[in-house]
């Protein structure tokens, strides 16, 4: 599995120049509105013929302007969830969902429609006309349609933006399973770091048509210098751990390189590897292990670096065993606690603050 996207294209005043290479899995495209995310996705889908570029998915060359290769969209077998839905108005919901099936290769069956319909909560809507759907319902049909077309590559342009958290929590595990079990590469555009942290294998950050950062999700998200590109609030690190036990009170014990952490029971078998995103703002630093406090997760850490901007907050990079953690704290606290690189101290993370979403099974 690998995704190689090199593009050079001019669109009005907008110039796209991207050259990224990721190992497959879920590649998150991140960037502000107008950064060029949809343009990249369109190029991969074959809806845009770039002025120059090369797109190779899993070794298969889809576009190569130098060699004059340009697979037409219908032979690319991408499942594209468009930013604006694009549901067929003349087909019922069922007709929309099954549309891609007509053209899928015989034999390869793809996912079960019943399962997808269930997951997306479309059961009662199957005979509906699209015009009689709410905004979120349309978006769900679009997701289902792409998933059911038996694609070799999923392109998802802000697929969950119009959905409520409960629904998102039903869809994300499915996408995880696609990533891990079906080994389907996914190009995923989202403004939500939580989604990206959970799903992505790699993250590419676009700004004004250029690639400003591209790398494994853990690296990008735990890099304080990437914090600005992602927006202040969203910095966070990723811990890789092994499920060590499910306790009777509903907590799951996870062994990470620096010790044990507790999470509300998660749906993973004993011994499996998972990843846990810990937002920088959820991490406190203490000089000594605090007592009599509701926080369960207290990890010994070493301060690696402190990085501050103009504001009152600073980001502290912490080494925790082999993993990295980020903590956002006030400059005042840093001074009061006298934090300096090399100092041994404790990271305090409320177990509950590692939200369900931020726990994903470990792909790749």
């Amino acid at each position: 599995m690998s995704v190689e996207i090199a593009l050079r294209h001019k669109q009005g005043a907008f110039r796209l120049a991207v050259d990224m290479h990721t190992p497959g899995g879920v590649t998150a495209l991140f960037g502000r509105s107008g950064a060029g995310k949809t343009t990249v996705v369109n190029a991969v889908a074959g809806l845009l013929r770039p002025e120059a570029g090369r797109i190779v998915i899993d070794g298969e060359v889809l576009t190569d302007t130098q060699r004059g290769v340009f697979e037409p969209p219908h032979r690319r077998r991408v499942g594209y969830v468009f930013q604006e839905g694009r549901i067929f108005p003349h087909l019922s919901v069922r007709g929309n969902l099954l549309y891609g099936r007509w053209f899928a290769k015989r034999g390869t069956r793809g996912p079960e429609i019943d399962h997808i319909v269930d997951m997306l909560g479309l059961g009662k809507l199957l005979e509906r006309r699209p015009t009689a759907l709410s905004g979120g319902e349309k978006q769900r049909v679009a997701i289902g349609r792409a998933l059911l077309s038996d694609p070799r590559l999923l392109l998802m342009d802000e697929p969950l933006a119009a959905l409520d958290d409960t629904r998102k929590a039903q869809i994300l595990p499915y996408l995880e399973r696609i990533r891990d079990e079906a080994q389907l590469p996914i190009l995923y555009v989202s403004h939500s770091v939580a989604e990206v942290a959970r799903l992505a294998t790699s993250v590419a950050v676009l700004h004004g048509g250029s690639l400003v950062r591209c790398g494994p999700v853990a690296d990008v998200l735990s890099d304080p210098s990437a914090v600005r590109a992602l927006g202040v609030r969203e910095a966070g690190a990723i811990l890789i751990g092994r499920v060590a036990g499910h306790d009777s009170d509903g907590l799951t014990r996870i062994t990470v390189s620096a010790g044990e952490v507790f999470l509300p029971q998660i749906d993973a078998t004993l011994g499996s590897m998972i990843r846990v995103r810990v937002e920088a703002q959820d991490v406190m630093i203490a000089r000594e292990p605090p007592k009599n406090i509701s926080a369960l997760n207290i990890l010994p850490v070493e301060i690696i670096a402190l990085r501050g901007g103009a504001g009152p907050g600073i980001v502290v990079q912490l080494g925790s065993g082999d993993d990295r953690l980020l903590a956002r704290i006030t400059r005042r606290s840093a001074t009061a606690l006298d934090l300096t690189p090399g100092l041994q101290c404790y990271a305090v993370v409320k177990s509950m603050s590692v939200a369900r979403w931020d726990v994903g099974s470990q792909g790749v």
Partner: protein
Amino acid sequence: MAGWLGPEEWQAVALSLRVALWATGLSLPFGIAVAWVLARRDFPGKQILNGLVHLPLIMPPVVTGYLLLLTFGTQGPVGAALQDWFGIVLAFRWTGAALAAAVMAFPLMVRAIRLSIEAVDPKLEQAAGTLGASGPWVFLTVTLPLILPGVLAGAVLAFAKAMGEFGATITFVSNIPGETRTLPTAIYTFLQVPGGESAALRLVVISVIIAMGALLLSEGLATRMARRISGA
């Protein structure tokens, strides 16, 4: 009602219906194809094709009829070839009347269909492409269903025009009772002689009733289609 019209007149009614139905039915696929090409393709000579399609609208019908005669008549290059190779005779046959009606109605049909095609959002067609549909399949499964109301409008325009076509028809296939004597020629005949107005009026009423029926039917169908799409 049967007593109201003589047998010859009934024959004209039946013939007109046959001519108009064949003219509409047979030209529809071509109309759709030409409309699609004009709406969605760019190629050298596109405007020539466009002009050709409009020609029968611009020229007086007699001229069109005369050109048809020269081209598709037994002596005409195409007419002779059709007869030699396929045994199809158009001159002085109801088939020729259908051809004349189809040619005259073609610009109307093409315009209506073309306007509908231009109204289809290409983004939907792109979406179908990403789902694995190749060009012809996209057309069949997305474009065509979406333009059906326009196709219907084009077809009913063509049918109405075919029911009323006179000048090109009589010039090309003349007026042979039972073969090419359509309603408009019958009406024309009555109008030539003093006192023939009431007989002509009867036939006018018949043809108006038929065309109105087709019109109402198409409106009803189009409304249903539109409702299915708009979900109302």
